């Protein structure tokens, strides 16, 4: 039964790619319906087969599969291959990616149905934009699957860059909008910084291990744990630490960890389905997945783990705070995503990889749900995104309202919802960890619970309850979104509620990931936490700090945005709060700093090198200077060609004499 796993893996990857090619290159011929049909079909095939692989893996006891499909090239004994590693981690990721992708594909049919209105009249760039969008979506699915199914670093890097490229294309999908173009360039450039570290990490792996194959690297990692590298004279670094930190820098870019997070809020310029699929559910979790996949490496370096932990904790706390001051509905969800990615990173830092990956999965469902619900609201509001102009949408959009509520409850970790199981596992694990930085991280994740509840329900109340603040024209057109939009919402709401119940016991506290994730006994915080069943955890959940903190958050939100709606404006005017608010409004000054130092700085450096180095030195002095010299020399020499016969004869005689003098007399 499992013999066909190799073929099936290939179909899983290629089906979306073929869909992308057909929808992208022949979009004009096959039309809108043709394009979304092939794209959805490709992803649906991929999802069904992924689910099959998951079933084999989890229920039928298939061994992890590691095989190569194609050898790209062999150079000096190093093989560059395309290959797949299918284990529980991969299987889970495949199902999550293809499921969310399928939902988003379907949803897009509704969301993009009037896309021509998003382009300036007569814009050539808008031709076949609908088909192009589907092509990109499918291409993304292909790239993400290549990333998660890779069995070597090269393919990982391919997938890593490919999802980055598609993300770039999709953030700037409405290329006639200046802000979109700015945002996609920003995303690309910031990711370049991370990718630089990532590439250095891969290079370090290649240099010290001599192979790019995961299995070989993981087998050899034990022998390399005491090797050191001198980065600058007088500093010896453990090679595993260096590799771990470099690879994590890549993850920081892709998974938007401080300080490389600045691109993610701006990425909301892209269409909402993209925000759900790429910038919430899947691509941004690639960094989390990668670190979990590299657990055999990270386990051997406490320094690297500590680094991961602290970065994650900072992101979890401080990015959540930013969510409090946003007015754009998508931006609230975006900062929430940043904060949740911080939670996952914290889990990785305390070696609770399983909890991190579990949170990745639950988050993928409920965050995609929240984004798509936000998109549904945006459709109803005629593409207005400011929450100050919403309110009371509950009665107009019941399905969107209900699913949003489910998503929000899952996000804040209300007991019983999927987010509760994953987030509480993380918090408990951090509480049991002794790794340097765990104390700070524990505080950050606990405070984060309150903040999460506060901003989530702030949004919920502002959008669905209270006064209807929109203008009369918008109100008159308010109605529930079409079924292509609501059905994905419902389908995503189901796992948002139940997936935690179903899998927390196996995935987090059981041995589900035993083949995929390595945890050293001294780091094994999850077994210290020691829940055995979902029910036990649920019972325990009502008496823990996070529960009360979340409840407090909801309560404060209710009070501020339902009862005393005048209060928020007053609080902001308080002396200390005012300063803090200004800092939060300015995103802690990251953007200003980046623009000033990196933006202006590198432009200044570039201009300097261009003017001084290129224009003056290379072009002016070397290139044009040489050309001028040759030209001048040429014009002098040509005068010798005077046209007079006796000059010519004289030249011959001189030539003869010179030869004579040089070779006969001497």
């Amino acid at each position, binding site marked *: 039964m499992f013999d066909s796993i190799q073929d099936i893996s290939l179909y899983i990857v290629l089906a979306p790619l073929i869909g992308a090619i057909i929808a992208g290159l022949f979009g004009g011929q096959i039309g809108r319906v043709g394009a979304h049909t092939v794209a959805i079909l490709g992803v649906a095939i991929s999802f069904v087969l992924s689910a099959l692989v998951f079933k084999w893996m989890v229920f039928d006891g298939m061994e992890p599969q590691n095989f190569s499909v194609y050898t790209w090239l062999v150079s000096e004994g190093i093989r560059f291959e395309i290959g797949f590693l299918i284990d529980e981690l991969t299987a889970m990721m495949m199902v999550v990616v293809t499921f969310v992708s399928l939902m988003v594909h379907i949803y897009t049919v509704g969301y993009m149905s009037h896309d021509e209105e998003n382009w300036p009249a007569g814009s050539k760039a808008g031709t076949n934009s609908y088909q192009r969008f589907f092509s990109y979506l499918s291409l993304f699915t292909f790239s993400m699957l290549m990333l998660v199914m890779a069995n070597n670093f090269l393919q990982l890097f391919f997938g890593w860059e490919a999802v980055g490229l598609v993300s770039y294309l999709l953030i700037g999908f409405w290329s006639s909008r200046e802000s979109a173009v700015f945002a996609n360039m920003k995303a690309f450039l910031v990711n370049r910084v991370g990718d630089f570290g990532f590439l250095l990490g891969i290079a370090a792996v290649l240099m010290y291990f001599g192979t790019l194959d995961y299995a070989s690297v993981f087998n050899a990692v034990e022998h390399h744990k005491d090797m050191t590298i001198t980065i600058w004279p007088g500093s010896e670094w453990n090679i595993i630490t260096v590799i771990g930190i470099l690879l994590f820098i890549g993850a920081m870019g892709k998974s938007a960890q401080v300080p490389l997070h600045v691109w993610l809020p701006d990425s909301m310029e892209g269409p909402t389905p993209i925000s759900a699929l790429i910038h919430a559910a899947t691509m941004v979790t690639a960094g989390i997945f990668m670190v979990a996949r590299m657990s055999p490496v990270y386990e051997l370096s406490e320094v690297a783990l500590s680094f991961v932990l602290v970065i994650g904790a900072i992101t979890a706390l401080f990015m959540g705070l930013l969510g409090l001051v946003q007015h754009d509905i998508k931006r609230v969800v975006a900062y929430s995503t940043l904060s949740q990615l911080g939670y996952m990173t914290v889990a990785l830092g305390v070696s609770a990889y399983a909890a991190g990956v579990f949170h990745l999965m639950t988050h993928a469902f409920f965050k995609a749900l929240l984004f798509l619900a936000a998109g549904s609201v945006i459709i109803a509001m005629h593409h207005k995104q400011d929450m100050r102009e919403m309110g009371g949408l509950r009665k107009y959009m019941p399905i969107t309202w209900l699913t949003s509520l489910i998503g929000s409850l899952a996000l804040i970790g209300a007991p019983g919802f999927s987010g509760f199981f994953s987030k509480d596992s993380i918090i408990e694990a951090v509480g049991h960890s002794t790794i340097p930085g765990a104390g700070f991280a524990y505080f950050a994740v606990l405070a984060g619970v309150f903040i999460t509840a506060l901003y989530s329900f702030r949004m919920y109340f502002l959008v669905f309850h209270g006064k209807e603040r929109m203008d009369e024209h918008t109100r008159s057109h308010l109605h529930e979104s079409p079924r292509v939009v609501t059905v994905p919402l419902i389908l995503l709401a189901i796992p948002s509620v139940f997936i935690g119940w179903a899998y927390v016991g196996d995935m987090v506290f059981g041995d589900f990931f035993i083949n995929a994730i390595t945890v050293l006994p001294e780091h094994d915080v999850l077994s210290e936490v020691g829940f055995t069943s979902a029910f036990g955890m649920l019972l325990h959940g009502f008496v823990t700090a996070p529960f009360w903190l979340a409840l407090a958050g909801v309560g404060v939100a209710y009070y501020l945005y339902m009862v005393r709606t005048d209060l928020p404006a007053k609080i902001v005017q308080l002396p200390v709060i005012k300063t803090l608010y200004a800092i939060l409004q300015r995103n802690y000054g990251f953007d200003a700093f980046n623009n000033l130092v990196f933006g202006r700085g590198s432009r200044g450096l570039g201009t300097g090198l261009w003017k001084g180095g290129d224009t003056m030195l290379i072009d002016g002095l070397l290139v044009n200077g040489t050309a001028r010299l040759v030209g001048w020399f040429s014009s002098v020499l*040509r005068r010798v060609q005077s046209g007079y*016969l006796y000059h*010519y004869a004289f030249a011959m005689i001189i030539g*003869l004499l010179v030869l004579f003098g040089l070779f006969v007399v001497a």
Partner: protein
Amino acid sequence: MNFEMPNFALAMPEMFVLGMACLILLVDLFLNERSRVVTYLLSQATLVGAFILTLSLYTPVRELTFSGTFVLDPMASVLKMAVYAVVFVMFLYTRSYLQARQMFTGEFYTLALFGVLGMMVMISAHSFLTLYLGLELLSLSMYAMVALQRDNRVASEAAMKYFLLGAMASAMLLYGMSMLYGVTGSLDLGEISRAIDEGEIERMLLVFGLVFMLVGVAFKLGAVPFHMWVPDVYHGAPTAVTQFISTAPKIAAFALLIRLLVDGLGGLQSEWHDILVLLAILSISVGNIIAIAQTNIKRMLAYSGIAHAGFLILGVLSGTAEGYAAGMFYVIVYAVMGLAGFGMVLLMSRAGFEADSLEDYKGLNQRNPWFALMVLFIMFSMAGVPPFIGFWAKLAVLQAVVASGLIWLAVLAVIFSVIGAFYYLRVIKLMYFDAPADEARIEPGRELAAVFSGNALVILAMGLFPGALMAICIQAFAL
């Protein structure tokens, strides 16, 4: 002195060409203007016949006849066949040009055929006497051809300069030969070689003769500083004649260089090596640099030819069979490219109008994209850009130079080639990026267009498959 019956068979092609040239001379007398085409056809037939004869005589050994004054070896056969082919194509190119200028006369063809005969004698010469005989026959034919339009002031001036300077060069060559005859006591190249190897002759006297002879050879090749005639003659002569004197005679001059320096004065290699280095550097540098300042395409091609002569010398100076083969490869390639280069001038010119100014190439792409592409091939090839044949020619020569240990010389040659690339690329720039001064489409005759396209495509095809010609050249020196 015994008189033995020479082996006439070895000189069959020469005798055939001589007989045919005389025949054409006679036949032409009886032809009127309209039937002049018979002369043309007979001339082409002569070349084809000579080709077949030479091919049938091809042997991979070296045979002497006429008391050792005439040699037939693979190099001679290959070079002769190259000469026939080049002149054949030249005749194809020039017919319409000559007809348009009342130059479609028997004189052009008979003079060209006698020139071919001179080249053949030079290529097969194994004695100072035959060498000089062939050289003079060729030279006199060419002087006359340059002056074919005797009412044209520029052409007459060019012919006059050519003749006087050529006479001077011949005198020097002859003087050098007489010196060597004096010290070795023989005109036979083999005898001279043996006499030098015995080592009883005062070295200085030999070098004295060598220097004078090399001046004569350098003049024929157009190497600096004996190149002054080249631009003026190329420019002044009718383009058809320029095409002739810039291609086939270079092949003969290469043979002259090999016969004299390798067959005759191989023992003086250390001396002539240094002289050739000097000539090569001067030719490559001066040729490429002055070409940049030219506004007339014929003059530009003349200086380009001077630079190419320098490259050809580079191949020979390494003193190895590989180097000679590279030089031979280079000279044949140069002849093919030179045909195309002046063919392009022929193509652009109309009756009463010589398109020999660089300005005339402005915007050629708009006037005739196909010919612009062909010109692009030719220019790239001359500049030595892969995959065109000019690249392989330069590469082969440079490999030979590097193999002989003169890396600095190879580097210098490459630097000047890069400088030289400027004026080739300028033609391309004019064609593709400048607005045409004259919007009229260029519609050359079908025959001319076909020959030109074929020639340019051959440059590309040879560049893609350079192996065959290279193998032939290597075989020619494999003895």
